[in-house]
């Protein structure tokens, strides 16, 4: 399994037309690409293959750690500092996961823009909507907590949101 999924950012089918040579003059673009290929692409690929063959002899793996879910801050008895600590650690892990989720959505939008080229305003709507949703949710949950964010402060922010909801409705 690779670090990234190639199928997550699919490239559209290439639409380069077949070139039919009509003149006897040499094609400078073709010369340029062949030059680049032989001077840069081929040596780099060969080097990579050599290194991979050396590395491939002893393979070893790493895994993503699965953490057990522990009771939340709302389920802790008052004064139970152990429960507070576990809830705080769980909240920090979830915060990191949420940050990575936002980064992934940003990457997808960026990939879409690079793929589409000049027509990104038209074709990237779904990615844009999803990113908008994710960014708004992240902002609502972790928005202005600052550098010393805490599970307790986040809970207070949630309480504020819940208090403001019936006032807005």
């Amino acid at each position, binding site marked *: 399994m690779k670090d990234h999924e190639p199928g997550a950012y699919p490239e559209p089918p290439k639409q380069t037309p077949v070139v039919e040579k009509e003149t006897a003059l040499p094609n400078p673009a073709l010369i340029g690409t062949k030059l680049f290929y032989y001077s840069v692409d081929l040596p780099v690929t060969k080097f990579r293959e050599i290194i991979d063959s050396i590395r491939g002899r002893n393979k070893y793996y790493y895994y993503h750690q699965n953490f057990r879910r522990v009771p939340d801050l709302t389920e802790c008895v008052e*004064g139970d*500092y*152990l429960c507070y600590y576990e809830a705080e650690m769980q909240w920090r892990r979830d915060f990191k996961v949420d940050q990575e989720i936002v980064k992934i959505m940003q990457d997808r939008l960026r990939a879409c823009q690079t793929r589409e080229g000049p027509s990104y305003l038209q074709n990237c709507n779904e990615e844009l909507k999803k990113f908008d949703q994710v960014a708004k949710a992240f902002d609502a949950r972790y928005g202005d907590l600052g550098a010393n964010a805490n599970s307790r402060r986040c809970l207070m922010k949630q309480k504020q949101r819940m208090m403001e909801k019936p006032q807005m409705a």
Partner: protein
Amino acid sequence: MVGMSVLRSAAALAGRLNPLKSNIPVGTLLSGSALKTEKAVVRYGSHGKKMFIIKPSDYYDRRFLRLLQYYTLLTGIPLAAFITFVNVFIGDAELAEIPEDYVPDHWEYYKHPITRWIARNLLDDPAKEYEKMMALVQMEQEKTEMRNLQMQVRRHMRQKGDGAWFQVETIDKSLIDYSPKATPDN
């Protein structure tokens, strides 16, 4: 005749001191006309005339930079070589799903081989660190509870006065002298 010679020397002086004319070297003061010498056009086979350029010493600056280079590269080059060899010959780990019934060791959650080595040999298991912190938290919690209880008990005992604390020792009853009570109308 004397006036003529004075005029002639004055004209020679004017001719010498004329700012518009180029600096023409003069032979003697008494010569009537200025000596004309042209500048010789010299073509060198080397890079021109060697100049002795006078500037302040840059020995100390260059020595500092040389020593800086030497001492950083003294450990820098072996370190860079070591890291290159590790990356080329050992290489990063690959991501895989955790197999069934397999509990990976704590260093098997990292990618780079040097990070894995550090996690394996130098650092403690993150679960162990977690438990160590939990132990500290529990000790502090017990201390807090004890102190809180003690504060409350102290307050109660002080207010009510029938507890074990805040009792003032009174003197022995047998030491009381009741002899003034024998004569009530004293």
